[in-house]
């Protein structure tokens, strides 16, 4: 029992000499099913590529402090997207926000999650807004949901947008649920709560109308 730490299952791995990627050698059978091993190896290779791009000694730095380069790039993209949005160039804004979101998602894993969450919450909320300006309610809804998923507290705009999208699509019940949830996270007397409440009125009216016509 004491030497159980030294026991392991040997996998027939091979190293691609040029790309340094690890693969499962094809001819042998493996203890575990090959597909799980392969997915694990893909992740490993991806992580390895990430490590190689670091400075020597090629280990992930401690989570803090953060390398500011990527943050700066994302901020730049977001700013240009914001300007595009203000110029009513909504499609362009969506495109730029999408780039920024992709960049935020591609952040290396060892950087603090809270940072990625914060950043993506804002980006998703903004993209939702840009979608809504184009009347693309389902897209806006999904993005708003992503935003509140990333950061439920202090994100009243995203809650409002999710509610609004649902209301625009006539899904009154779901809109009500979304607004209720948003109100849970929002101080009742704040500015954001007021907007949520007024949207709630709208939703209730819509619900009544839908019920009377049905």
């Amino acid at each position: 029992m004491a030497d159980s730490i030294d026991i392991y299952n040997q996998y027939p791995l091979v190293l691609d000499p040029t790309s340094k990627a690890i693969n499962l050698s094809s001819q042998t059978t493996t203890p575990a099913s090959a597909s799980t091993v392969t997915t694990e190896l893909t992740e490993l290779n991806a992580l390895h590529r990430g490590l190689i791009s670091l400075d020597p000694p090629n280990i992930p730095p401690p989570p803090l402090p953060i390398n500011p380069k990527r943050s700066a790039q994302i901020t730049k993209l977001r700013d240009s997207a914001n300007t595009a949005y203000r110029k009513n160039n909504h499609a362009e804004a969506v495109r730029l926000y999408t780039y920024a979101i992709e960049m935020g998602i591609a952040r290396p894993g060892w950087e603090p999650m809270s940072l990625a969450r914060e950043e993506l919450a804002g980006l998703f909320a903004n993209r939702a807004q840009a979608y809504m300006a184009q009347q693309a309610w389902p897209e806006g809804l999904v993005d708003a949901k992503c935003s509140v998923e990333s950061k439920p507290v202090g994100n009243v705009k995203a809650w409002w947008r999710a509610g609004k999208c649902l209301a625009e699509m006539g899904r009154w019940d779901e809109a009500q649920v979304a607004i209720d949830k948003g109100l849970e996270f929002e101080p009742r007397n704040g500015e954001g709560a007021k907007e949520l409440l007024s949207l709630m009125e709208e939703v209730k009216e819509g619900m009544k109308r839908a019920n009377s016509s049905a």
Partner: protein
Amino acid sequence: MVNWLSLAVPFAYLGVLIGSLATFSSLYRKRKAQKAYSLEPWFPAHLQRDIYFSLLHIDPPATSSKEKKAPAVPESVLKAALLRRAEEDIKRVLALRSQKQALGVLLQRGSVGDDLWQRFQRAEKEMEDEVRDVVSEANAYVPGWGQTIFQSANEMMNNTLYRERIAEQQAKLDEERQWWEKRRASIKEGFMKELDAEDSTSTAPPQKTEAPADTTPTTTSSSTPAIKTPESSGAPSSVTGSDDDAVLVEADEQPGSPASPSKKKKKGKK
């Protein structure tokens, strides 16, 4: 001769005694070991750990002339594998921690057997060793890495979880889009009927020709030919395309304002 015979009796006695004792002891031990072994391990096989060790044990390429210079696997790969291993370790440690309390309560009440508790304790001990092992390996690569490797691995795990959730949300997009397309088509159908009922004047014939072409798209597949003015965004173009038809109908009354379809659609829907 007589001597041998009289001696054989005690020897035989001793032989039988020792033999039976040995058999008993070996049988007993074997059974015990089997029992302990037959207890299922708490976790499935530690894939990341297996891979890490497999990498360590890959034979160096046979043709290498300078033996020292050509390790089988570059160190960075091993580091990555170690990180993956640490990530999985964190998952397991967290799982153990969250299960411990509940299991303790269940054990006190007698709801679960002793076996389960033994398995759990074994897993706990193994994880302790495992974590210590990872830390020492990390320190062997870069001095001081042992202190931060689990921090990094923890963030990596959280980030992966978070990204999975986001991806899940984004995956719903197609479903939502299709739903909305269908729904919008049905709304428009109702709207068309209202319009038809309202004015059966000269504008009616063009509307009627328009209507059947539009009401069919309730099935999403046939809605694609309705694209007349595809807008910049790619996928929802079928939506906007069918929408522009609604504008076309209205545009009969107000010609020369196709540039603001969004406002009108809003009006039409409400």
